[in-house]
């Protein structure tokens, strides 16, 4: 019956897309009505930032088959750059001689790196390889200790006298771009090491690097104020204090929406060009692709870095919108697994699916909190009146744990019953 109706549509009628888009539209409408426009727009902005991040992940996981389990780290890098570039200049730092000392410390660092690199090349001058390795390790350790001891007084002086080095006072969008580049750079190093190995290793390595990035941002107080957080972060657009919540957020939304459209456009172009065909071939059969003259390692790295850049940009936009840089606030649950669910549910490799998935999942995620509380209280009330059951004191806390469970369940169920997502990757095969 249903199949009959479905079959009436022409083959390339985007029925599935329309249905999913309609669903998302309905959800957005529902939120706008039930939560008020100020909050609704806010959620849309955040969802749109997540959509940019999810597009980055869909490139890696959907296009390239690379499982990045450390999205959080790259988001944090984007956020850090957004903060560093947009926060006003800290005169308490720049008016002292601390910048000079910091610069001197960096000179030491560079000199140290050069020294270690030089020692590691000693075998070219006839040193035996083993001796060189031992020597390099020793020199590296000593240099590390020295550089560390050069930095320590400078950074603690900064912390004590100025709090932190402050920002550069530039528009936030410069920070987003630089954040994207920085994320890409880190992605380049990770990818360089891990992309040649089996895919699980990449997952483990990225999981680790995300924690390391977070540990760094959290503990280098001279740079980020650490756990003391930096806020408010200036927006590239007028803030709510000037225009009110709804209008200022709508303008911000316009900015992120333009970004999404631009990214979407670029991705579609690339994916349906020979580039996309080549990436699919590499995902399909690496050995054959290499024998057919494709530089597999370079291309995989390209895909990974490209994805990281988008994740960094999205992270920057998200952090700026939130108005606070809090290194501690980057959590695997919110910034890695949630994005993963968006991509898996939306359809890895399908750009439109990913964007709609991001919107849908973010709405579910945000709305699940009041919903969980409501259900739990309802249950407690009913149980209380029927059986005299007394609600435990930490009911709310427990109810909210259900969200973690739900996200986990969502991942496994989608993978099990719709492994390709709501909108599977659309392989527009070349027709002869």
């Amino acid at each position, binding site marked *: 019956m249903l199949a009959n109706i479905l079959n009436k549509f022409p083959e390339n009628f985007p029925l599935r897309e329309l249905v999913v888009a309609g669903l998302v539209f309905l959800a957005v409408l529902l939120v706008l009505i039930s939560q008020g426009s100020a909050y609704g727009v806010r959620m849309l902005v955040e969802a749109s930032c997540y959509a940019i991040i999810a597009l980055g992940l869909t490139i890696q996981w959907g296009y390239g088959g690379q499982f990045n389990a450390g999205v959080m780290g790259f988001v944090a890098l984007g956020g850090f750059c957004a903060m560093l570039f947009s926060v006003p200049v800290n005169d308490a730092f720049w008016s002292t001689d601390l910048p000079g000392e910091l610069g001197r410390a960096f000179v030491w660092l560079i000199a140290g790196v050069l020294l270690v690199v030089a020692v590691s090349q000693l075998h070219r001058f006839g040193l035996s390889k083993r001796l060189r390795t031992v020597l390099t390790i020793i020199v590296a350790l000593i240099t590390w200790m020295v550089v560390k001891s050069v930095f320590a007084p400078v950074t603690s002086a900064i912390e004590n006298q100025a709090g932190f080095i402050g920002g550069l006072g530039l528009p936030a969008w410069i920070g987003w771009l630089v954040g994207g580049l920085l994320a890409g750079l880190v992605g380049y190093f990770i990818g360089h090491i891990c992309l040649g190995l089996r895919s699980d290793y990449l997952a483990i390595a990225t999981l680790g690097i995300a924690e390391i990035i977070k540990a760094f941002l959290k503990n280098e107080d001279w740079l980020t104020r650490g756990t003391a957080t930096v806020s408010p972060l200036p927006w590239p657009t007028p803030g709510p204090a000037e225009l009110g919540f709804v209008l200022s957020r709508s303008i911000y939304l316009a900015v992120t929406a333009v970004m999404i459209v631009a990214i979407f456009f670029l991705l579609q172009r690339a994916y349906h*060009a*020979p580039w996309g065909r080549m990436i*699919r071939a590499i995902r399909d059969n690496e*050995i*054959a692709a290499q*024998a057919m*003259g*494709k530089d597999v390692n370079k291309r995989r790295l390209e895909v990974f870095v490209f994805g990281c850049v988008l994740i960094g940009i999205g992270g920057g936009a998200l952090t700026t919108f939130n108005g606070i840089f809090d290194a501690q606030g980057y959590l695997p649950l919110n910034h890695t697994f949630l994005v993963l669910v968006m991509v898996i549910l939306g359809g890895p490799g399908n750009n439109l699916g990913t964007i709609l998935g991001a919107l849908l999942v973010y709405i579910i995620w945000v709305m699940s909190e009041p919903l969980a509380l409501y259900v739990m209280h309802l249950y407690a009330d009913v149980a209380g009146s029927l059986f005299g059951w007394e609600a435990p004191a930490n009911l709310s806390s427990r109810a909210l744990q259900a969200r973690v469970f739900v996200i986990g369940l969502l991942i496994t169920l989608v993978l099990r019953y719709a492994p390709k997502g709501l909108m599977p990757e659309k392989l527009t*095969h070349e027709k*002869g």
Partner: protein
Amino acid sequence: MNPIIEVKNVSKAFGGLQVINNCSIEVAKGSITGMIGPNGAGKSTLFNIIAGTLPEDSGQILMDGEDITHDTPDQLFHKGLLRTFQIAHEFSHMTALENLMMVPPDQEGENLFSTWLKPSLVREQDAEVRRKALEVLDFINLSHVKNELAGNLSGGQKKLLELGRTMMTDARVVLLDEVAAGVNRTLLGDLVSNIERLNRELGYTFLVIEHDMDMIARLCDPVIVLAQGQVMMQGTIEQVRNNPEVVEAYFGNAL
């Protein structure tokens, strides 16, 4: 005749096992050279070393006089050295047509920035590539399955596709690793004619590993016999068949 591939004193060991032992061979330009030898002689290993998928322990490999010892497979591809795999390595989630279209090197559309900045050039080039691919599909008799996913093709068709890929770009040397194994003998006849045609019409040089003597006899001159990582002899198929040493190591009483 001048050689297009020269393998000079190449050695390779796995753990303690010396698989290729100071081996030297030459493949003449424009020839179809056969390579036979007992199982475990090191034929595939030598192939992989030439094609850049395995590093050799020592020795040197030249192509048209140029040292290609340390080149990677993709670099060799760009120099005109193409190979097939003993087990077909198709791109199973792509159509037969796409399998061929992805082959040509230096497509402008493979550059991320060109896809954004020069879309019309990319489109033009791609149309050209498609035309070529359709031509090749016709040549290898696969036109009727061009829109079929390669993963759904039968074993023999996959092997034809492997061969077709070598025709998508100007190759100079093609290495064929046991194209006949597991292929129906009737279909094999077609394959052999294709190889002959390529050699004759397009001037490709072939190096062919095979255990099917009918095919070797029909195609190859000369034939190199590899045993325990070394060349045992080289000659015409008749010379090979009449060499008692080769008969003992390779043919047994199967002749």
